């Protein structure tokens, strides 16, 4: 299970429903084949309590990416760090939530699929493992919501699945599960360890346009906390911010319009 919390500014000490739903689906899949679930998240040191909750819910191992760089723009995209850890861990199915982001707007599931060169099924609502006995052709089958209908889709492993199901069972973890989670591995990955890991050959196409709209919207109004006011940003404003970002990143020197 993958998610990035560095973009969030809330200080809650419990997992929200979306994250719980993803964890529950992962554990459900694990129980189908007696497998193992590793949860990977990006955030700060205090987010370890969220990973502890994931362990209490039934995950087997938890890894937290906690880079120390004070300037967010100097950190690599979260998906890049996660890709390194996923390669280290080994994987069959990579599950993430539909709204889980890498940075402000990029979708984690899509970026991971790109970096790992895997197929991705998105908007999935339930998963089932099949044909695992046949090691040559293991499959995962999911229902994908398409309008008001559900289509059934299958994929060979490994693959990335982005879940659209937010209906967590919302169960209370018991004290026994909480105390049992203390025996499970919870590792924090800092800059030095992450920089020492080998990345794959994939490259993420960073989404300047979405970030530009966000930055322009924030600049227009200090009160805006979310960045959904697309209608209020003109194309000219968005282009201006995109060019500025590209120049700052030394990708271009300038554009004559």
């Amino acid at each position, binding site marked *: 299970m993958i998610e990035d919390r560095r973009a969030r500014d809330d200080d809650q000490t419990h997992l929200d429903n979306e994250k719980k739903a993803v964890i529950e689906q992962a554990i459900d899949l694990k129980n189908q084949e007696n497998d193992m679930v590793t949860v990977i998240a990006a955030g700060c040191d205090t987010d370890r309590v969220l990973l502890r909750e994931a362990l209490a819910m039934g995950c087997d191992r938890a890894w937290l990416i906690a880079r120390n760089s004070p300037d967010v723009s100097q950190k690599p995209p979260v998906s890049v760090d996660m890709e390194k850890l996923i390669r280290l861990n080994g994987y069959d199915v990579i599950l993430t939530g539909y709204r889980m982001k890498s940075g402000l707007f990029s979708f984690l599931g899509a970026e991971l699929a790109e970096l790992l060169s895997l197929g991705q099924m998105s908007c999935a609502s339930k998963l089932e493992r099949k044909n695992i006995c046949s090691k040559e052709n293991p499959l995962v089958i999911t229902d994908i919501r398409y309008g008001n209908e559900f289509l059934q889709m299958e994929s060979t492993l490994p693959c990335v699945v982005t879940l659209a199901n937010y209906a967590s069972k919302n169960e209370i*973890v018991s*004290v026994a599960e909480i*105390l049992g*989670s203390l025996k499970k591995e919870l590792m924090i990955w800092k800059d030095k360890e992450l920089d020492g890991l080998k990345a794959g050959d994939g490259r993420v196409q960073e989404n300047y346009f979405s970030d530009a709209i966000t930055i322009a919207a924030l600049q227009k109004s200090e009160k805006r906390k979310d960045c959904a006011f697309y209608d209020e940003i003109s194309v000219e404003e968005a282009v201006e911010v995109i060019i500025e970002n590209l120049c700052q990143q030394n990708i271009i020197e300038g554009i004559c319009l």
Partner: protein
Amino acid sequence: MMDFALTEQQILIRNAARKFAEEELKEGAQERDITEEFPLHLIKRMGDLGLIGIQYPKEYGGQGGDYLSYVLAIEELCKVDSAFGIAYSISTTGFAGAIMLFANEEQKMHCLPSICKGDAMGCFALTEPEAGSDAGSAKTTAERKGDKFVINGTKHFITNGAIADYCFLVANTDLSKGSKGLTAFLVDLKTTPGVRVGHIENKCGIRSAKVAELIFENCEIPTSRMIGEEGKGLRYALTILNAGRIGVAAQGLGLAQGAFDTAKEYMKERKQFGKPICQNQYLAFRMADMETDIDMARLLLYKATWEQQNDMPFANMAAKAKLACTNLAMNVTTECVQFMGGSGYMREQNVERMFRDAKITQIYEGTNEIQRLIISGNIFK
């Protein structure tokens, strides 16, 4: 370097208790205050979640956790229903704590597993009509006859008395020795002939907690049910009251926090003279004072819990925590009713129930005057 942070385990246990309180306990709290029904099924639910006996060893049905996690759970319960919270605390500390500390293995195995599972409840029977603060003058007798003790007398104001399965009873085996004749016993309330529930109290607050009289009339129990040594009953009881004080302090803190949170939300919504009432400086400043007081009381409570957890003498700190948190509960609930105006006085807002519930916290488990005796005695020893 002092570390004020809760551990991950403590945060998660607190969150589990909070979730249970918000999703399962809160609904019906107002109604239970009117009907005075105690929800035994929720005790069972807490047992299933492992929230009873958090701090006790696994071999007795506990979870092997720490004491602060248990205190955090009490606070969360009492934010929404302090009657339920105190019933839980008395069963888990007043009764089970006494058994853990002073009973033998057979006695522990007889009752602790079912208490921790939520299948049974316990009570602590010390107080009598003529023996409240002066607990040493208790007159209930336990006369040895062969291989039995025969108990006669009346205990009153016993929290959980009307519903408990087990009782930690303090009775006198030798009246000539006065308080030094007091001895502790384990009594199965529902299966022992000669013990019955008498008058069930009609109270101002904590109305769904079943506080009752226990009447012993030639009640026979085997001598194997004597706890610890003969004549040490008062010492055992006073030791347990120290731990019980931490539970009542947590109750007071929960009441204060619950009332504060309710008033805070109300004050953000309620508009008078064109603005939310929280924008009136006097009210905002009073809320700032109250939040500061709540945090101070919380630190005192956690310090007392830390001392107990680390096997340090904690009676003095427990007395301070009880005094501070229960006075806080009374002050904060009173203010919050006031700040919420007419609405605060009505049942629907729940804060009037918290106001009524708060008063008893200054009285039971040792009145606040007794706490001051303990604290001042320590200052001037």
